């Protein structure tokens, strides 16, 4: 039991800005993104890096929900796929330019998440898990069934992202876009956590009753976080689709939702960098496990169970505590 993470009392006002997680951490991540190309040997490595960055964007958002608001979503693959399919359908079937279709889709997914979250987040316990699970399954079935719009089980081609009149193509260019967006997402999340809202959110995770007696509107903050996490997922989904040039219903499956949750908890709940590390490890792991394709699901499950039993807080917070640092 007990609050998993950083408590509200750990405000350290005199800390130099570089040492704070918000600025220093973002700078560190920006530096990693900036200098990683020095060690990326080829386009395949760039491709993996792009996938890591896009997955990490989803995880950073999902982590706010799981780690800070203490709510689990089992339908984020639905938001992810809606982002990809939405942008692709608007662009190919309705002739909307991609630079419009992408943000428009993200806004629509945000609105959908808000609509679903509003009644369910006022309730306690497992209702959000059930609601997101249900929504995810419905989205997945709709995508598979409405084949005139979505291409059905075979998926559909997605036009390239067009920025300033030029198509964005090639792993290297995509690397910089995905990397910059990841840094922006992390910075935004850290800001949210350090804001009064974020402190309220952490108080909430410690004890919802205590937080409410202090006048914190628990449901409102949960709803904000849930909506933001859905928008992050839609953004990453749309970018993944435009990057790959193709999307299939697999992206909307319950298993993909589970995969996203695994990335978050493996890296560390309530740790923004944990989410990034989790996304990195679990994006690379399947690439390494291709030789063991038959064992992939078993290994995945075993890793998940072992992590949660041995490090209930996830990898990054556990290591951070061991070496005396702060996990954030």
């Amino acid at each position, binding site marked *: 039991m007990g609050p998993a993470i950083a408590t509200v009392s750990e405000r350290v006002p005199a800390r130099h800005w570089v040492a704070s997680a918000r600025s220093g951490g973002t700078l560190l991540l920006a530096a990693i993104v900036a200098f990683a190309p020095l060690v990326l040997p080829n386009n395949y490595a760039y491709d993996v890096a792009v996938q890591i960055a896009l997955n990490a964007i989803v995880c950073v958002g999902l982590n706010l929900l799981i780690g800070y608001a*203490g709510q689990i979503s089992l339908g984020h693959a639905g938001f992810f796929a809606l982002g990809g399919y939405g942008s692709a359908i608007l662009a190919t079937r309705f002739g909307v330019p991609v630079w419009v279709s992408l943000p428009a889709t993200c806004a629509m997914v945000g609105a959908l998440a808000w609509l679903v979250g509003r009644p369910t987040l006022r309730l306690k316990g497992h209702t959000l898990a059930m609601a997101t699970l249900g929504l995810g399954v419905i989205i997945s*079935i709709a995508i598979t069934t409405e084949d005139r719009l979505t291409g059905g089980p075979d998926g559909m081609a997605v036009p390239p992202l067009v920025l300033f009149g030029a198509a964005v193509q090639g792993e290297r260019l995509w690397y910089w876009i995905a990397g910059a967006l990841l840094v922006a997402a992390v910075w935004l999340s850290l800001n949210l956590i350090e804001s009064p809202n974020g402190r309220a959110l952490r108080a909430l995770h410690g004890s919802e009753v205590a937080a409410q007696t202090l006048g914190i509107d628990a449901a409102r903050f949960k709803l904000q976080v849930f909506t933001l996490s859905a928008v992050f997922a839609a953004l990453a989904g749309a970018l993944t689709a435009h990057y790959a040039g193709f999307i299939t219903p697999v992206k909307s499956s319950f298993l993909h939702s589970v995969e996203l949750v695994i990335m978050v908890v493996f890296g560390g709940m309530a740790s923004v960098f944990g989410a990034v590390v989790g996304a990195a490890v679990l994006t690379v792991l399947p690439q390494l496990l291709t030789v063991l394709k038959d064992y*992939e699901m078993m290994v995945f499950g075993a890793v998940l169970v072992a992590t949660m039993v041995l490090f209930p807080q996830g990898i990054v917070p556990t290591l951070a505590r061991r070496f005396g640092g702060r996990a954030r």
Partner: protein
Amino acid sequence: MGSSWLQFVAGGLTSGAIYALVALGFAIVFNASGAINFAQGEFVMVGSMSAVTLLGLGLPLPVAVVLAIAAAAVVALIIERIAIAPARHAETVTLIIITIGVSLFLRGLAQLLWGTGVFRLPGFSGDEPIAVGNATILPQSLWVLGGAAVSVVLLATFYRRTLLGKAMLATSYNRLAAQLVGIDTRVVLFASFGLAAALGAIGGVLIAPIAFTSYDAGIMLGLKGFAAAMLGGLGSFAGAVAGGLLLGLLEGLGAGFVSSAYKDAIAFVVILAVLFFLPGGLLGTRHRDRV
């Protein structure tokens, strides 16, 4: 027209009885641990797949069925010892994620053992459809309904008549109070996993002659069982049975009269509607929030 009604109702109740058994498993584990056991569907699969294998080894059907149910329970008990018990003080979210990990592991193991093929058990008393009016009903449907009803009665007797059952019931009302009167809640959690898995496996072997089975058959059954448990009110046994039957009925009628392509979505549309308009579930009042 009248005959298709009967047909859809019969089909719906048959699936509904299975959802009820799976939902009971969710309720039992929830009452003992406060967590949703996402591996519940996998126990359904382990039960039906084991039965197929045991039958293939030449065992008579009744023996294969009983051994398969026992096998699923044993697997669940082992998993409780290895994965759940060490983390029982963890947060609920952590426990849920552990069960998701267990479900992935079991599904991966099943894929390795049995491949990705689809298997089927023979009907317990033949596959000759019975004509009822203008509708036809498989004899296996009667087995499903009867088997589920017997299981529910046995479960109720277990809770009412045995010491372990009473201890489990007490724990579900108030874990701390149960501990104070000397109930070992670790034993309750252990037994809950075995019992939930056995119920799921019963559902699995009963439905296998109709719906077939494969390494991933547990996903949808598990998710719908969860939806049924939520529909009836999580933690309520009567609610689980009612929720399962209602869900199956709505699904049968929906698939028949609305859209068969969206058959699997109907359960989740219903559950979303219930969450929005009737948040406690149909019979779920026990776990209302107290501040």
